[in-house]
């Protein structure tokens, strides 16, 4: 059974000019011990979806429907206080985007981990401190540095501390939002490897949000590609990378240079992401899609299964695409 079941989740930001539909009818599952990668360009709703699951919404963001079932319990329906006590960090924790700023500069790193433990478990301070030291050790940081402040750590080490903190309460699911974006490439791969090892060892489920497809390819089992607040393609990482089927998914995979192939120009998709205040009618990708026909401008495509292995695509022209038409080459 899936540990996290998201169905029809809708989260809109209220602005002076109307609702921004940042997350619009999104559905996906994360199986226990598996990792789901969520990819898409900036502003497509990846981070909004993460904060919706943890209900860390800004005051103008509101859930407008759908359910998030954690172990069978719909956590959208819990009241705020219960959600804070029983779900946040205890069941679902998060590794944040800005490795540099995710830790409070005026508190010792160890205390910040202890604080997370004590917020959810009734244990003596000493025991929590010992566990914080073990956690630091687990992510490869000398436990003696418990008493140091964040500015005494490098970016990669700070991110390790954040990961250690995310593991503090033995959560079921970890949401990692661009966990390596602020780091340089070498440190990136170290941090990713540390995360992968820990995830395997602790049998954690993970939702990894990134615009870097190579990170998903390296660490995830499944992938969901988002465009303009919706999932347009979903499936096993291997299926999607070998055989991307949605025009946008195809473009995204193709836009990533392959170091083993012949040198070519990296293709970018023409056009811009749509304005989410007034998304295009029908398929949201149609203004940028070379295959767009009449039906694409009128009807919104459903996410339907193609082939096997629950590879799903939301496109009216899926028959054509399945025959292997390469739409992004001249």
């Amino acid at each position, binding site marked *: 059974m899936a540990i996290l079941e998201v169905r029809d989740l809708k989260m809109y930001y209220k602005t002076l000019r109307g609702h921004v539909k940042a997350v619009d009818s999104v559905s996906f599952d994360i199986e226990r011990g598996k990792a789901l990668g969520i990819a898409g360009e900036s502003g497509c709703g990846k981070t909004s979806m993460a904060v919706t699951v*943890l209900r*860390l919404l800004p*005051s103008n963001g509101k859930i407008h429907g759908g359910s998030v079932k954690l172990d069978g319990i719909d956590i959208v329906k819990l009241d705020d206080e219960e959600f*804070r*006590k029983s*779900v*946040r*960090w*205890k069941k679902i*924790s*998060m590794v*944040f*985007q*800005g490795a540099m*700023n*995710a*830790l*409070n*500069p*005026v*508190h010792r790193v160890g205390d910040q981990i202890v*604080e*997370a433990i004590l*917020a*959810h478990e009734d244990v003596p301070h000493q025991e929590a401190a010992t566990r914080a030291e073990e956690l630091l050790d687990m992510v490869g940081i000398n436990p003696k540095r418990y008493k140091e402040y964040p500015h005494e750590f490098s970016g990669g080490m700070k991110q390790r501390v*954040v990961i250690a*903190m995310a593991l503090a309460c033995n959560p079921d699911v970890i949401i990692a939002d661009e966990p390596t974006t602020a780091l340089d490439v070498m440190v990136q791969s170290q941090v990713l490897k540390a995360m992968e090892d820990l995830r395997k060892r602790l049998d954690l489920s993970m939702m990894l949000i990134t615009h870097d497809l190579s990170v998903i390819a390296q660490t995830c089992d499944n992938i969901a590609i988002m465009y303009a607040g919706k999932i347009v393609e979903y499936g096993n990482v291997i299926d999607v990378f070998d055989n991307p089927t949605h025009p946008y998914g195809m473009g995204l995979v193709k836009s990533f240079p392959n170091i083993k192939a012949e040198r070519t120009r990296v293709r970018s998709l023409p056009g811009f992401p749509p304005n989410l205040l007034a998304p295009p009618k029908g398929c949201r990708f149609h203004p940028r899609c070379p295959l767009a026909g009449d039906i694409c401008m009128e009807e919104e495509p459903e996410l339907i299964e193609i082939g096997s292995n629950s590879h799903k695509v939301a496109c009216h022209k899926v028959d054509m695409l399945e025959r292997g038409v390469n739409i992004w080459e001249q």
Partner: protein
Amino acid sequence: MGFSRYLLRRLGYAVIVLFVIMTFNFAIFRLMPGDATKMIIDPMFTPEAIAELKRQFGLDDPPLVQYFKYVGNLFKFDLGLSFSTRRPVVNELKERLPNTAVLFLASFTLTTIIGISVGVYTASKRGTFGDNFVTGAGLFAFAVPSFWIQLLLLMLFGYYIPILPIHGTMSAPPPDGFLLQFLDRIHHLILPAGSNVIVAFGSWALYTRNTMLEALGQDYIVTARAKGLPENTVLRHHALRSVLPPIVTLIFGALPGMVSGAVITETIFSWHGVGKYLMDAVMQQDYPAAQGAFYLIALAVVICNLAADIVYGIVDPRIRVGEGGAK
């Protein structure tokens, strides 16, 4: 090291400022219109008596000699005799200093505690009616002259709803028993200290609110919330804690203003303190008394400034580097 050099330099400045104040203090009262000697010397006296009186008060020397005597006496804490009471000014100031200190400490402590709490509250309720109301009220109280608000409060609680005493530091005669005396003093303290709080809390509240809002937008606040900490802990332990250094610095920077503000507050509420003493002395052209009170207030301002500089240097390392010449 950088910091001790910085400290020495600040100390040097403080000494220079004190010296300049000392000199002005001497000159200003002698430049005031009117003849101070009329206060103590009756024109009906014989010329011999006048000369003798002038000699007693040291007014027969040329100004420069008077000045050097004055400076020399200052170092001996001898501020001369008051023209009007004929008592040593030092003794009179000693009697009044505790009253001023009590009023100052009460106003200052309450203002900072209330100001910062209100700032935290309004930041957490940004955009709500409570936020707008408190922020608006604080701004209003900050913008209008302080004596105006104080006079209105005096009228309200002394005349229309006469529940608070309108002058003095305690009842005359004082009630019996330590506890009753203590309560009586508190009763007298409410209006002056309360009005000081109303006048000054707005600027602290606004400053705290703005720095808090900035802190609340930081990533580590999202982390704290995601950790499932109660909102109260997020506000105090994470947001407020990280903006406290600049606020503390600002508080120390504002100390001198609060000291000098005592003159107005004490005059309005007839508070038996140094500020009122200064005002009375100026009105009566009582040179030694005015000089003494003025000097004491100036000394307090300089000390507060020095404290602010030191705290600033401790809180903000950049100051130390810049001043220490480590470029």
